[in-house]
């Protein structure tokens, strides 16, 4: 993946905007931003962003590639869609944020210890394996994503919660070993593989 980054840097030497337009989901919309700031003001976690969406757009136009792609900002997106519905220019901001995060991830530039990024990875792997999400495995994996010691601490903190879920039959300890899944997991994996291949082929061309 690191190679891909080098390739992209070469290809778009002068224009990060063009790179984003060609490679990021919704990227062709970035140029339409009129810098009103309503997205940034509407974001529920806005205060946690180093660079809120509108600033990211301006940074993209200004060619701040490294700063944008290594930023933790877009990983703060809760997918609440406030920005999308309020944007006066129709920019699919939520999707652009997702797209930027994914692109950064693909290029290997996403911040390594970003918790949402880690969670997303766990989630995806969990899903791909069986076709459905195994909440318990996902949860346990999540607790330990920052290492064993942290994980035990988190697990202890979360124990009452888990117990509550268990009591109300909204969590099943047996799921850890078996659990839900689809019958045609192989078919799903084939679909995803093909989809990924199509996307990679396009990314190489872009």
């Amino acid at each position, binding site marked *: 993946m690191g190679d891909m980054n080098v390739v992209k840097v070469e290809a778009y030497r002068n224009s990060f905007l063009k790179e984003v337009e060609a490679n990021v989901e919704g990227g062709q919309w970035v140029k339409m931003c*009129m*810098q*009103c*700031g*309503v997205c*940034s*003001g*509407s974001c529920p976690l*806005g*205060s946690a962003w180093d660079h*809120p969406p*509108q*600033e990211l757009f301006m940074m993209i136009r200004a060619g701040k590639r490294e700063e944008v792609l290594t930023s933790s900002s877009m990983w703060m997106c809760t997918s609440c869609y*406030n920005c999308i*519905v*309020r944007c*006066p*220019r*129709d920019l699919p901001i939520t999707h652009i944020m997702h797209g930027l995060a994914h692109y950064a991830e693909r290029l290997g530039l996403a911040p390594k210890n970003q918790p949402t990024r880690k969670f997303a990875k766990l989630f995806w792997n969990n899903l791909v394996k069986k076709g459905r999400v195994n909440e318990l495995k996902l949860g346990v994996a999540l607790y330990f994503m920052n290492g064993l010691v942290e994980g035990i601490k988190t697990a202890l903190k979360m124990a009452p919660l888990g117990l509550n879920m268990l009591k109300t039959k909204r969590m099943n300890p047996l799921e850890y070993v078996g659990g839900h899944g689809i019958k045609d997991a192989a078919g799903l994996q084939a679909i995803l593989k093909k989809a990924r291949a199509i996307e990679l082929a396009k990314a190489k061309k872009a």
Partner: protein
Amino acid sequence: MAEIVATNQTILVVGGGISGMTAALEAAECGKHVILVEKTPSIGGRIGQLYRYFPKLCHPTCGLEINLKRLRGNKNLRLLTMTEVADVQGQAGNYTVTLKTQPRFINENCTACGACGEAVKAEFADEHNYGLGKRKGAYLPNAMAYPQRYVLDPRIIGTADAEAAKAACKFNAIDLDMQVETKTLTVGAIIWATGWRPFDASKIQPYGYDRYPNVITSVEFERLADPHGPTGGKLLRPSDGKEAKNVAFIQCAGSRDRNYLKHCSRICCMASLKQATYVREKFADAGDVSIYYIDIRAIDRIDDFHQKVKADPKVKFIKSKVAKIEQDKVGNPVVHGVDTEGYTRYATAHDLVVLAIGMEPSVAANNFPIKVKVNESGFIEQDEANGAIFAAGCSSDALDVNRAVQSATASALRAIQVINRVAGTEG
């Protein structure tokens, strides 16, 4: 109603606001025969509801007084109020128009003495004040109303109030049997000057106009500032009548936004700058103004007014489209967003928030009595296909008064060109 003479050398002007009035007067003062129709009971339109004009801060009623004097003295011009155009047929130089006049229930005998107004009990939301106050069921639409004649609200017809009004009138001016009148006329050209209306602020849901009493529109704020308005010219906020000393103005409220109006309404920046001076004038240094904007569009030579307001330390400019308004526990609207110059988040409480509301055409694109070419925002385009129907003022685009009058004057000439061709006097 007296006979109306009209021929294919007559110009019909639809709408009695500043544009329609101007178009009608300019044409009539060139010696042309003009019929001016106005939907409401008196002429003046939206400018009659403004306290001051930008950038001079002079009073629109001053120019209105001149125009009314021009109108009263002009024999070429015939005014029909409470009248709408129901239908238009034909082509340039020969249109057949159907006019529909609503009953006023008061005839020419009215002296505007006010006796009927005193006799009637029922009250209704006052249209002149955008519903911010009340008026009687028998009323003079406003102090400058022309014709200077009372109107009975149709809602009191058939009630004891109507009889009381009739009994109070010593001049036999009240006619409760008046009916809707329809007449058909021939005209040669039509000037369409139906103007604009404020965008429905309640549609801008993040700003809570429909939920928070202290979020009002710019047109309503004009009424608060006007001595003829519901507060007698005091800037009192609606919820509790407290003086609104700390006022926020939110630009592009409805404009430049694909969720509402895609176009820029042009006037709103200047209107807010103007209204900022009201706050500063009424409260001096106790007044605080915040203007939340994307681009300040103080176009051409009037930018110096912008500079002047900007130099006032008590007027703050925040480059930001406000994301959301909430209300705190004491009824202050709290404005949320991000200042894009330096990215500071704000959550600022103000006494009053004024939405610089956008303009949209009064007549919706599919509501014209004859097919006309309109653009995406519903404004009439200048196009051959429109025959001798010419847009004047804000029927043609979002315009300020100055440009609206320019447009109206131009449309008067376009109509005259048609009339002169019909008359064979074009040379």
